[in-house]
């Protein structure tokens, strides 16, 4: 596999980066970077780290990095994570610079500890912290419960002063959404599987409305809704499919939630290089974080409508003869 860190790859312009990923030769990972500088979203670092775990330290090739940006990779813990020499003199600092270095989470207890420890590092207000910990908890639990990846979930996050946003990347190299959702549904391709996974009340564990005792099929819909209300990017990449929730155009226009992710302002593709597992990235603006409870009112309305509509589709009309 080959992965190249370009000058710039954030959620808004991530498509060329994803298209450049070469998934062939699954036993090796070759990491290259732009020689001058690079500036990338945490999703990308989590992807590189997850691939590194997959192939193992002895199968990672990484050229000697000359770019100044290599310090960023050092700070985010990528070299330590991959077990490769960075060639950088290290002066360790407390990670209080509003970032969460790359972390692997393999079980429920580790997740609980991670969430408790990470929020203080981001120095955000309580109402902003509420969305962030919600997103991380639900996404990582999805990995732990559904991905069947022995390496668990790889997570990192970074605050960006200029845009006043926090970027979060959560990645696994497990089953992928299509295999998970198709335990109960029959999505024809990865994009249809992503669409189903983002629809409220749809879970791979059952077709029954209301889900099972542990899964309702609501987690990803909640997260997409948080991103929609906050007017943020949200990317989900699995198999050959990629769905990107785009920022809504006008800040003054009232934001609408939709049960079908394809009714939201988005871009998508089904011809991306195959990602074994699921990679999710989100950027959360801290400028206009609405009250979390207000957001829940909107979610409640649309969720309820979606369930009613889905039930209505199964109604049978009386036959009058």
């Amino acid at each position, binding site marked *: 596999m080959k992965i190249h860190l370009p000058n710039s790859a954030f959620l808004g312009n991530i498509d060329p980066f994803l298209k450049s990923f070469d998934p062939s030769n699954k036993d090796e990972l070759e990491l290259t970077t732009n020689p001058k500088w690079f500036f990338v979203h945490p999703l990308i670092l989590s992807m590189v780290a997850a691939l590194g775990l997959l192939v193992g330290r002895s199968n990672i090739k990484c050229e000697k990095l000359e770019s100044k940006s290599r310090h960023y990779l050092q700070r985010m813990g990528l070299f330590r994570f991959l077990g490769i020499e960075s060639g950088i003199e290290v002066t360790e600092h407390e990670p209080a610079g509003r970032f969460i270095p790359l972390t692997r989470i393999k079980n429920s207890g580790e997740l609980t500890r991670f969430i408790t420890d990470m929020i203080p590092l981001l120095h955000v207000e309580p109402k902003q912290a509420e969305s962030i910990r919600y997103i991380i908890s639900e996404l990582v639990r999805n990995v732990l419960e559904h991905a069947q990846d022995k390496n668990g979930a790889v997570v990192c996050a970074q605050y960006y002063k200029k845009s006043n946003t926090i970027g979060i990347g959560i990645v696994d190299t497990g089953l992928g959404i299509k295999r998970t959702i198709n335990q109960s549904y029959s999505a024809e391709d990865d994009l249809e599987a992503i669409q189903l996974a983002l629809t409220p009340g749809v879970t791979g564990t059952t077709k029954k409305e209301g889900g099972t005792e542990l*899964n309702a099929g609501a987690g990803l819909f909640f997260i997409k809704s948080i991103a929609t209300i906050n007017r943020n990017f949200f990317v989900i990449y699995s198999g050959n499919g990629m769905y990107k929730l785009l920022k809504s155009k006008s800040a003054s226009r009232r934001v609408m939630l939709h049960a079908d992710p394809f009714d939201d302002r988005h871009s998508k593709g089904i011809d991306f290089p195959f990602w074994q597992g699921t990679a999710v990235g989100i950027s959360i603006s801290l400028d206009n974080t609405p009250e979390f409870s207000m957001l829940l009112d909107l979610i409640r309305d649309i969720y309820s409508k979606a369930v009613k509509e889905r039930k209505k589709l199964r109604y049978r009309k009386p036959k009058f003869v």
Partner: protein
Amino acid sequence: MTINLYKTIGSFAENKDIAKQLRVEEIVPALDRGEEVTLDFTQVESTTQSFVHALISELIRDYGNEVLERIHFKNCNETVKKIIEIVADYMQQSD
């Protein structure tokens, strides 16, 4: 019977394994004894839909909507209250 959630789960109630454990080991036996159950959310700042689902969805399914007459949610802040309402809504709409 009253269950203090903060003692078990802390200020962010998100661990659904613990939610299931509370349901199976404490709530269900209490309901089966004919008792009412109070879930005390004092000091719980927030929760997730997954946690609340794991805590109460199976109760609604097994005991019917009427079980909500026997469970009391105490000292919930706005966020916690709304997440409980969402789960109660969609479970009562389900098959």
